[in-house]
């Protein structure tokens, strides 16, 4: 028992030194035209070895440490509590959700501009994650290129406004529908694929869209992106200091209040909030409809689902299309919020983060996904004080989360469909 642990611990400590010393202990210094290698100061070297020692000790006593950590979840006062009955739980959940939405409606009027801006981003991620939840959580199709549909939505609005002067409200349905169309088109070639193969094809699709946007300079401006995307208007009222478009009035003039740049931020936030709520409600509806059950049946057992007469084509395509539709929604809002978009906003990491939100939240669970979206977006901001290490903190939080709650924050409780008995 002790010997393998000792060997393993020694090995880990050596790996630590091998990795850490060249990175931290050796510095490249530019001296006129040459670059020379210089050893770092003693403190760095000492801390590298101290870190190796910590790794060694931890690995040596790992079993004991993990055993004592195993007692931790018991600290959670809710751990031993009985599960609530289904109906009570559902009612509580809808009350909690309604409360959150009402709070969210008034919240922006009391906080700083930066927080509202961040909250808008959170809401965009909520929309994205809810959409991806349909594809991954419900239909069980691992999609690693989800960001492509987000990009389609954003670029649709950007291009339409640049070339045709289309407003936000017109572009919103167009962007969403175009993204849905892309979802449908992607759906066809991947119908026969499952699991890993599907993941790779969707990954490729996401990259194709990004590279296309990057290289089609004549249309999309390539890496320079598209700027000057208009803000949304409220019944023809603009939120800028001066009215840009003929026939529009400005918001502060109409209501006779002083101009404030905050109005626009809050307005965008409210739009995002309303759209996120609409997204959640529509998808909730879908989940309870036959098509929602068909998604789940296909995820659980494809052969059985087909033996019952479900068409694999229709079920998979509907999941892809609906998921993509809401990504398009989110993309349009994103373009409007940023005012400028470039292919850089739609890299693979975005897909990975959205997927992480869905997995962290608990596959298929809406409330979980909302909570996870908030956590994943805000956590890096809160950890800003650690500056360089914030991604590290973020990563560590994710790893710990998956170790302790592999089923996600709020695993999905299946909604039971009860037929009303007619007496």
């Amino acid at each position, binding site marked *: 028992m002790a010997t393998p642990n000792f060997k393993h611990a020694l090995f880990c400590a050596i790996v630590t030194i091998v990795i850490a010393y060249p990175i931290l202990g050796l510095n490249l210094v530019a001296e006129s035209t040459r670059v020379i290698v210089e050893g770092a100061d003693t403190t760095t070297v000492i801390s590298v070895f101290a870190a190796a020692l910590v790794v060694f000790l931890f690995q040596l006593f790992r079993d004991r440490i993990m055993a004592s950590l195993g007692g931790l979840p018991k600290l959670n006062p809710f751990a031993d509590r009985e599960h609530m009955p289904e109906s009570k739980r559902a009612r509580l959940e809808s009350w909690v959700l309604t409360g959150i939405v009402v709070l969210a409606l008034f919240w922006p009027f009391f906080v700083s501009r930066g927080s509202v801006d961040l909250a808008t981003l959170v809401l965009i991620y909520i929309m994205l994650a809810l959409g991806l939840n349909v594809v991954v959580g419900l239909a069980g199709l691992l999609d690693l290129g989800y960001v492509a549909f987000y990009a389609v939505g954003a670029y649709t609005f950007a291009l339409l406004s640049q070339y045709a002067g289309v407003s936000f409200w017109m572009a919103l349905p167009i962007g969403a529908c175009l993204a849905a169309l892309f979802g449908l088109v992607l759906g066809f070639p991947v119908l026969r694929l499952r699991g890993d193969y599907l993941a790779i094809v969707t990954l490729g699709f996401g990259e194709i869209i990004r590279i296309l946007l990057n290289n089609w300079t004549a249309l999309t401006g390539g890496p320079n992106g598209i700027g000057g995307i208009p803000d949304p208007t409220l019944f023809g009222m603009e939120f800028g200091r001066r009215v840009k478009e003929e026939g529009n009035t400005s918001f502060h003039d109409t209501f006779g209040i002083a101009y404030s740049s905050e109005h626009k931020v809050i307005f965008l936030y409210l739009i995002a909030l309303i759209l996120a709520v609409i997204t959640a409600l529509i998808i909730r509806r879908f989940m309870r409809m*036959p098509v929602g*059950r*068909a998604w*789940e*049946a296909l995820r*659980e*057992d494809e*052969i*059985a*689902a*087909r*033996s*019952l*007469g*479900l*068409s*694999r084509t*229709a079920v998979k395509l509907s999941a892809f299309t609906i998921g993509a539709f809401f990504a398009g929604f989110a993309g349009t809002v994103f373009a409007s919020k940023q005012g400028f978009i470039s292919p850089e906003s739609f890299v693979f990491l975005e897909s990975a983060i959205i997927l992480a939100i869905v997995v962290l939240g608990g596959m298929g669970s809406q409330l979980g996904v909302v909570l996870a979206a908030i956590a994943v977006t805000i956590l890096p901001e809160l950890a800003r004080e650690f500056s360089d290490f914030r991604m590290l903190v973020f990563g560590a939080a994710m790893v710990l989360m998956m170790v302790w709650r592999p089923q996600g924050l709020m695993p999905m409780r*299946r909604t*039971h*469909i009860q*037929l009303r*008995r007619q007496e």
Partner: protein
Amino acid sequence: MLILEDVHTHYGKIEALHGVSVEVNKGEIVSLIGANGAGKTTLLMTVCGTPQASAGRVLLEGRDITHEATSNIMRSGIAIVPEGRRVFPGLTVEENLHMGGFFNTKAEIRKSQDHVYELFPRLKEREQQRAGTMSGGEQQMLAIGRALMSKPRMIILDEPSLGLAPIIIQQIFEIIGQLREEGITVFLVEQNAHQALSLADRGYVLETGRIRLHDTGTNLLANPEVREAYLGG
């Protein structure tokens, strides 16, 4: 009811069925027996349209379904209980049953559900339990119940006795007999030759992709060749 005429089926370049002709008449129980790899499951899958027959014809109630999509075939009064049960493990018993009646109206679903619970009172007890947590026998009952939910005129069972205790097998076969009483045509594929043939009106013996023998169930049971190969002498 169901007629297969000289059906050939390929997996890629390999021919699994070399011209099989089978006929199942309305109201009959027909058993298909054969060893592992004889092509029993392939034959059933060909009826369902995955894979489709490369030559020959499949007729269901006089309609040619050889080249129809699986989803269409499965909605035209035929239901299959797949090999290995294949219930939806994460869904409850009730939800599994509802999936079976996916294309029916709510009223029809309710009626068939009551009927299934009548056939299998055990399922009623387990109504809100997840299917994956049930025993093999209960899952097999659920798989049959789910197939019955679409009110099929014909039901195909692929090895319903697979991996079950003898007493459960007995029950399952009793239920199959009951289905015939209700006027449902049954096409039964089994390795458990004794049970399958004693219940059947007629039987086919499939060997390496060809029909080897075809007779009434009782005659096949008495056939020395069949006794030798499938009933342990």
